[in-house]
């Protein structure tokens, strides 16, 4: 009788209920309902899958046995960053993103989705306040996707195809951008020009000025740079772009913007970046999310590929939320729309809205000061380790490039030893001798001293 049990996820799989439904249709079985599919298309036997674990007690045991074989970096001491970081997620954020009303549905009416739409609007409002920009779209997949879309926006705005960007960029991000820049149509291809950077990732301004020409659609920089340096040339880069009639695009991490000047005050036309740092766990890479923001001008608004959630009113005069410029999305205009959109990372907009409200202006200032101070402490502490060279200790936010070449050890060997002998996850390999280590509010000074001591032992 075991086989005839109704499946827990399917209320109508109980035999009597199913039979009653079939009766309503005058059928003995479901097979006639598939009459549209020619017999030659049909599988003759069930596909080969592992046996079902319909009992939750068995399934949970299986899943947890798998999970026991993981060793999450976040559960120990980790300095992994480079595009997705371990920042503290307030417990309230986890509670809100776990609410079934936000977690499980997809779309309702403007009235029945009202609460969710308000959260989304508070996401764009608060992010806009951090960025100093008044037009913010709903999230995209990631920072890389945001940059790719922004480059295409700039190309449409200027009718040009050259994009100047830092050579010191996350390879993961660049690999995504490359897909957006390339085109099957040679006339539509964006030319990605990688400009040289210093060891902290800051752009070589003279090189950028020489590369910027009348076909330059955009100059893109990151602040902080991939290798941790705050971009001291931000104002000059915007000036260079303005001189050649190009757009200035900046990639920023909003978690820095309590202490760092916002793109809106640095002459940036289009800001992009991550929302993962705003209250989203790493989730093995599934915590990524990106944003696109600009000045609130029709010329920019007309190029957004994202959905745009605007404040509006109801017929009774209440505040409400609706999608603006929907017609220019791919949903509205198919291949004539601006790039494409679809399911994105909207749950992370809920996380980020909650996170920004939790921090407020004072929280963002404190976390910014703390990350700067931790990074500085790490630079000073690690510079004291024989065989480790640190590029710079001031003007660095969260990441440091550690050079092990003087020690004769490779990053692979160092990271291997850190993990095996000290239980520490080292940094991302940039070259065989250099690795990017991330320092956040999750690290104490004692954690950093522990890393230094471990490196001393490993490099001795």
């Amino acid at each position: 009788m075991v086989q005839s049990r109704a499946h827990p996820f399917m209320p109508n799989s109980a035999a009597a209920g199913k039979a009653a439904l079939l009766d309503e249709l005058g059928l003995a079985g479901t097979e006639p309902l598939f009459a549209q599919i020619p017999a030659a298309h049909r599988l003759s036997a069930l596909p080969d899958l592992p046996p079902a674990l319909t009992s939750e007690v068995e399934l949970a045991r299986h899943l947890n046995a798998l999970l026991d074989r993981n060793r999450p970096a976040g559960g120990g001491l980790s300095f992994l960053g480079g595009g997705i970081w371990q920042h503290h997620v307030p417990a309230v954020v986890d509670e809100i993103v776990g609410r079934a009303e936000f977690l499980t549905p997809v779309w309702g009416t403007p009235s029945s989705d009202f609460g969710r739409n308000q959260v989304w609007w508070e996401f764009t409002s608060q992010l806009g306040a951090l960025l100093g920009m008044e037009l913010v779209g709903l999230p995209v997949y990631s920072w890389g996707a945001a940059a790719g879309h922004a480059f295409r926006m700039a190309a449409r705005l200027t009718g040009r195809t050259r994009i100047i960007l830092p050579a010191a960029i996350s390879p993961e991000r660049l690999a995504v951008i490359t897909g957006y820049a390339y085109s099957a149509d040679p006339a539509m291809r964006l030319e990605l020009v990688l400009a040289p950077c210093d060891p902290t990732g800051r752009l070589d301004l003279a090189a950028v000025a020489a590369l910027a020409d009348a076909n330059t659609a955009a100059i893109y920089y990151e602040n902080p740079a991939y290798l941790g340096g705050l971009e001291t040339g931000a104002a000059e880069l915007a000036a260079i772009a303005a001189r050649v009639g190009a757009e200035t695009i900046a990639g920023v991490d909003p978690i820095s913007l309590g202490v760092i000047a916002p793109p809106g005050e640095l002459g940036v036309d289009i800001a992009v970046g991550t929302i993962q740092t705003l209250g989203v766990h790493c989730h093995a890479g599934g915590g990524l999310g990106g944003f696109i923001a600009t000045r609130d001008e029709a010329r920019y608004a007309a190029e957004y590929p994202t959905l745009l959630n605007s404040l509006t009113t109801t017929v009774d005069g209440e505040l409400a939320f609706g999608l603006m410029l929907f017609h220019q999305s791919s949903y509205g205009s198919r291949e004539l729309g601006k790039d494409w959109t679809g399911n994105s990372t909207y749950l992370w907009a809920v996380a980020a809205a909650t996170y920004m409200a939790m921090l407020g202006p004072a929280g963002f200032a404190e976390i910014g000061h703390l990350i700067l101070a931790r990074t500085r402490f790490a630079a000073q502490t690690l510079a004291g380790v024989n065989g480790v060279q640190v590029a710079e200790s001031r003007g660095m936010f969260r990441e440091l490039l550690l050079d092990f070449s003087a020690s004769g050890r490779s990053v692979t060997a160092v990271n291997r030893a850190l993990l095996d002998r000290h239980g520490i996850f080292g940094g991302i390999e940039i070259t065989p001798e250099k690795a990017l280590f991330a320092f956040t509010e999750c690290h104490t000074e004692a954690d950093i001293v522990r890393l230094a001591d471990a490196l001393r032992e490993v490099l001795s």
Partner: protein
Amino acid sequence: MTLRRYHAARWDEPLIHQIGAPGRRGQHFPLADSTGLVPAGLQRTSPPDLPELSEPEVLNHYLRLSQETMGMIGVSLFGTCTMKYNPRVGEQAARRLAGVHPAQPAETMQGLLAAVHGLDLMLRSLSGMDRFTFQAAGGADAAWTQAVITRAFHAARGQGQQRTKIITSLQSHPCNPATAATAGFEVITLPLGENGYPSLDMLKAALGPDTAALMINNPDDMGVYNPEIMEWVRLVKDAGALAFYDHANFNGVMTKIRARDLGFDACMFMLHKTFGVSKGGGGPAVGAYGCTAELAPFMPGPLVVEDGGAYRLETPPQQAAKVREYLGNLQQVFKAYAWTRAMGAEGLAEASDQSVLLNNYMEKRLLTLRGVTRSHPEQTSPRLEMTRYSLGTLLEDTGISAVDVQNRMADFGIDAFWLSHEPWIVPQPFTPEAGEMWSREDIDYWIDVLAHVIDEAYRDPERVRSAPHNQVVAKLSDRDINDPANWATTWAAWQRKLGQGKKG
């Protein structure tokens, strides 16, 4: 029939910028001195205009907003999205992945990689494909993956310049033509024939040496299956092009057909739709993209490889570009693995049967309602897991539109039905998808509410036109938010444009 005396929670909750008070704090961080650490000219000189709130205020604000969201607590049959139960056991277990960094060494995430590989194997069985990647962060991103692989595949064969066109149909999801166009292809959209799908002659006329790929769904969003699909794929491949199966509507045909058996080179499953993963209001999502060994070298990597019980990552040799950083939304892949293990092959077959049975049960009742018709009446075979209906007659009779009906149904705890992707094939379309998660009582209630609203439309159309009445707020005004003077995506823009919304 007795309809529920539903009323949405209505908190009149202010905007976040309108609450709190100066000096309140929701989070403390250890205090630190960063004097002199920010280069000149890069310091923030005025604090961001963020609200100042204590921790309980933030919690309560967002809890109230969650209550002002119907979510899946009402009955949602949002067609094309396959509303599905998200097993909480998977949600709960996946929380243990929160601290995993994607750049961790593979040996420190063997359990996760085992699940990713396990799902890959199960999807191979369900599709006949040779390999899956989970990098695409949604169905549209999987279509983008296909477009990117199409470019790379033809370029590698020296035909990149020649193969400039991608063919799709009027009933394909907009992401197919949109991603094809973004990738630089010219899009050819085939119109539908009288049976609800384009004719073979239309396809033949479009095919040529310049064809790069076909991107097609089947069954389409009207529940119509193209019985000539194998001939389609044969013609496409004879022309030297690739055939991509957008399996958005897999729910009705799970275990019944396999993309590879029909001849396709690649296919896509949406884990956040068909495979039980929570939708999050629109992601994080996963478009699982599977293809043949011939296309596998072009897949975005890294992919998970099994070696004697251990798992490692490997980047395909001819990867053209990535579609997403790292390996994708792996916590969602893990949930899909959990769901698929809970179902097994018999469970998937049953879910497919259920979704088609329930749709046909719904259809029988819905077509008895005044003012409801179905697309392509000449196509008499039972629809699969969805049916495209029209309220055109209702509009003509009463002036009540599908959107009016949608708004009024929300007054009874029924969330929006899907209308139709662009373009509309029938006037005033609506597309419920029953799926397998709702009980017969839920489905009957949904139909009872629609019957009530239609009856009301004939009796008292103003009551429907002015709906909703029991919702959080009334329906949207006709305020033109496509006008730059009116739109506002941020508090700052709203304040500047309208000088409104100050606290108190």
